[in-house]
């Protein structure tokens, strides 16, 4: 092999005094107007973690209210506002930008061997657009927060007195941020790959980002126009979605899900992309089925556009539509399965080290498989009629979003933390936090599958007594989960001050980012990187 293998201890000193993207320029202004994708990534990271904390606090309130039937800590109106904010913040402010805009922004150009994204100014603009959108969303809190659910179904949303306009306007603005990030990434991947890096040598993280970006660019404008129509409906009373005025409320649902189903793949594909990086590194083995994993991302992105109607099996759409949507839903499950099998096969005969990022990857496999397989219940017409809008759906999507994407995101955060900050976190605390999260998560949401099957509807502030034990159990789980994240916040913040300096390549990875100092210099590499081999070619 043509270069030296950088092992975990040898290069600690080499980075100690060198200039990097953090200390290259100083002062607040140098961050505010930076065009460096790494700094923008870090600013995104801070913002989305804040959003996650906010959304998580809302979740804890939701769970606390549900610990017993009837009023526990808040009335129905407040409850409805809290779960709406929880859903909207988690989706629009946290999970959609999470991996692409924060970790992706930081890592994608480095993994490609580029100096920056294709359009650095656009990149900074999309960050500020994100901030403005986020302000609108959170400001709606002060003006009587929206109480519509994150789906904003008409005609409820157009008739309720709460600040739906501010919330949807926020989501509308956030959409542009998402579009610009996607557009930027596509151009970067197409045009800025290092010499020698063919499509077939591109790390799978980049493939995942590519598929995600395609969806962002194609689906998000439709969300934009949907929300615009909704706002117009509310402000001018146009009547497109309101049966009283001659409109069709189900049309809104088609519009909304045409974006929001592909959006769930905007959420999961980046998570899968991270897992595809972590598993080979910590198994010290070539990824199994590179091509299958890369192409299945693209397949998911494409088929994912044709299944939106599976959210509307009980909406009164025609049987034919139901049949087609159900069938395509099943088809889109296959590429996900292919990925899962390939990851497991990668571990076969490897050399598996159980560092924190790998623990997250294993947790992902466990949880995403449950989340995905329960998606099959929901794709099945007659079974979904029973399960639709019950806690079964709530459990399904938390398993894929929280157990899938969020777990993968934290896996990625731990994986790249040394690269981003130049510091190591406490491995033992990290393992404890990971275990707490894993246990807490299952306690919280496994119960909800049973609740849902037994008929507990979602978005219920109050419930019939028979559901109480399971709800209480779930609430306790949410506290364990919260504890896990609190611990994580603690040791990550502590590592910034007291963590030991990270080497250039603490995990023995062979992709580009591990060949440049931690943290990377302002232009990512001190030399011009050239790809001569595939991204997962470990020495035997």
């Amino acid at each position: 092999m043509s270069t030296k293998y950088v092992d975990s201890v040898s290069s600690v000193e080499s980075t100690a005094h060198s200039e990097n993207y953090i200390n290259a320029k100083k002062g607040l202004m140098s961050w505010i107007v930076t065009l460096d994708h790494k700094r923008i990534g870090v600013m995104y990271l801070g913002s989305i973690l804040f959003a996650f904390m906010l959304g998580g606090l809302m979740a804890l309130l939701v769970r606390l209210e549900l610990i017993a039937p009837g009023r526990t800590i808040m009335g129905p109106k407040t409850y409805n506002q809290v779960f709406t904010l929880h859903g909207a913040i988690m989706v629009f402010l946290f999970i959609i930008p999470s991996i692409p805009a924060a970790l992706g922004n930081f890592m994608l150009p480095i993994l490609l061997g580029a100096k920056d994204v294709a359009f650095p100014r656009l990149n900074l603009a999309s960050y500020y657009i994100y901030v403005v959108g986020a302000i609108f969303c959170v400001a709606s809190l002060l003006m009587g927060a929206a109480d519509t659910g994150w789906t904003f179904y008409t005609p409820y949303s157009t008739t309720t007195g709460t600040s739906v306009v501010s919330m949807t306007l926020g989501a509308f603005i956030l959409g542009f941020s998402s579009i610009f990030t996607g557009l930027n990434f596509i151009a970067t991947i197409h045009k800025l790959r290092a010499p020698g890096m063919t499509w077939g040598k591109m790390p799978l993280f980049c493939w995942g980002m590519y598929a995600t970006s395609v969806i962002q660019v194609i689906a998000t404008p439709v969300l934009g126009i949907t929300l615009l129509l909704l706002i117009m409906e509310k402000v001018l009373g146009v009547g497109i979605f309101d049966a009283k005025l001659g409109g069709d409320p189900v049309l809104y649902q088609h519009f909304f899900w045409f974006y929001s189903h592909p959006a769930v793949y905007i959420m999961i594909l980046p998570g899968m992309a991270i897992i595809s990086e972590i598993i080979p590194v910590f198994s010290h083995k070539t990824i199994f089925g590179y091509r299958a994993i890369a192409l299945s991302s693209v397949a998911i992105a494409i088929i994912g556009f044709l299944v939106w109607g599976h959210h509307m099996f009980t909406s009164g759409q025609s049987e034919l539509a139901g049949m087609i949507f159900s069938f395509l839903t099943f088809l889109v499950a296959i590429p996900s399965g292919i990925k899962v099998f390939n990851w497991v096969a990668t571990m076969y005969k490897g050399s598996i080290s159980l560092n924190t990022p790998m623990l997250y990857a294993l947790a992902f496999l466990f949880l995403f498989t449950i989340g995905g397989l329960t998606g099959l219940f929901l794709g099945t017409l007659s079974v979904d009629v029973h399960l639709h809008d019950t806690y079964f759906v709530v459990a399904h999507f938390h398993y894929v979003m929280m157990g899938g994407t969020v777990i993968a995101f934290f896996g990625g955060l731990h994986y790249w933390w040394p690269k981003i900050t130049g510091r190591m976190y406490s491995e033992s605390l990290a393992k404890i936090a990971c275990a707490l999260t894993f246990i807490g998560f299952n306690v919280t949401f496994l119960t909800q599958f049973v609740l849902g099957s037994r008929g507990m509807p979602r978005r219920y502030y109050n419930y019939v007594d028979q559901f109480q034990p399971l709800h209480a159990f779930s609430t306790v789980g949410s506290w364990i989960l919260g504890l896990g994240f609190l611990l994580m916040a603690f040791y990550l913040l502590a590592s910034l001050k007291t963590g030991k300096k990270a080497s250039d390549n603490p995990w023995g990875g062979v992709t580009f980012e591990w060949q440049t100092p931690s943290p990377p210099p302002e232009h990512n590499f001190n030399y011009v990187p050239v790809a001569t081999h595939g991204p997962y070619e470990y020495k035997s």
Partner: protein
Amino acid sequence: MNMFLLAPFMPLQGSEYAKSVDLLYEFIFWLGVVFFIGIVGSMAYFVFKYKRVGEPRNIPQFSHNFALEVTWSVIPLIIVIVIFFWGFDSYMSNRIAPNDSLEIKVYAKKWQWEFEYPDGTRTLGEFHVPKDKPVKLIMSSDDVIHSFFLPTMRQKMDVLPGRYTTLWFQPTVEGKHQVFCTEYCGDGHSEMMAELTVDSQDKYKEWIENGGLDKDTPLDQLGARLYKSRNCNTCHSIDGTRIQGPTFKGIWGRTERITGGTTVVVDENYVRESVMDPNAKVVEGYERGVMPTYKGLLKDREVNAIIEYMKTLK
């Protein structure tokens, strides 16, 4: 042998259809368990077996296996196609209601369910149906979208404004069944419940004869119910305010001036006449033709009940 090992996961099976849905649920469940154990089991085994000790050495670097990859793509494909057809088939089997169904209209509004029977009986928040007879619900909403969910029948359908949707079931288990609203509709969403009672054929008959009440309900209580469920309250207040019609407060024994110059004392006959033929005597100051006739819609017992109710409104 009990076919339904997952019975504790599901509510009571209130119909044959519920059983067929559960069977499919059960099939997908065990299939999922097999896949889950396969995946997580091999993962755990690999972690245990190939745990790293020291520097990695002699790791075989293979990157694909065509036969294996085709296998694990095609087998799930076949399985999902089976699930798809099964689910589609059971869905379609329960879409078209039989012609002899009992048709009940369902009106949803924030935040209550109202039921109307073919004979005009209306009930609020609860309804009865006979066992073993197919029941078809024809539903619409006054305001936002609601959704009618009968967990024990494994049935659910959205209820939309400006449009009718239908749902049917054939109950096989007597007793009470819960109805939920499962489309978010605002503050009262979680209280928007109703109760279905499946009666034996005889008991159902008795119930419907009694205007949708048990036969031993006191008359004035029945009257109070009818006052609301037959919408008298939209035009007649009980607190003295004037709406579209005269208030019922203190109506019993009142002397009314009738358009045309006569007067009349409100008694049994006058009330009966007002309800069955409202235009016969129109109260002065009110418009003729506003009040609809309830001829054929209110049974004798029900008119008596309203009269008893009026007597209580001092």
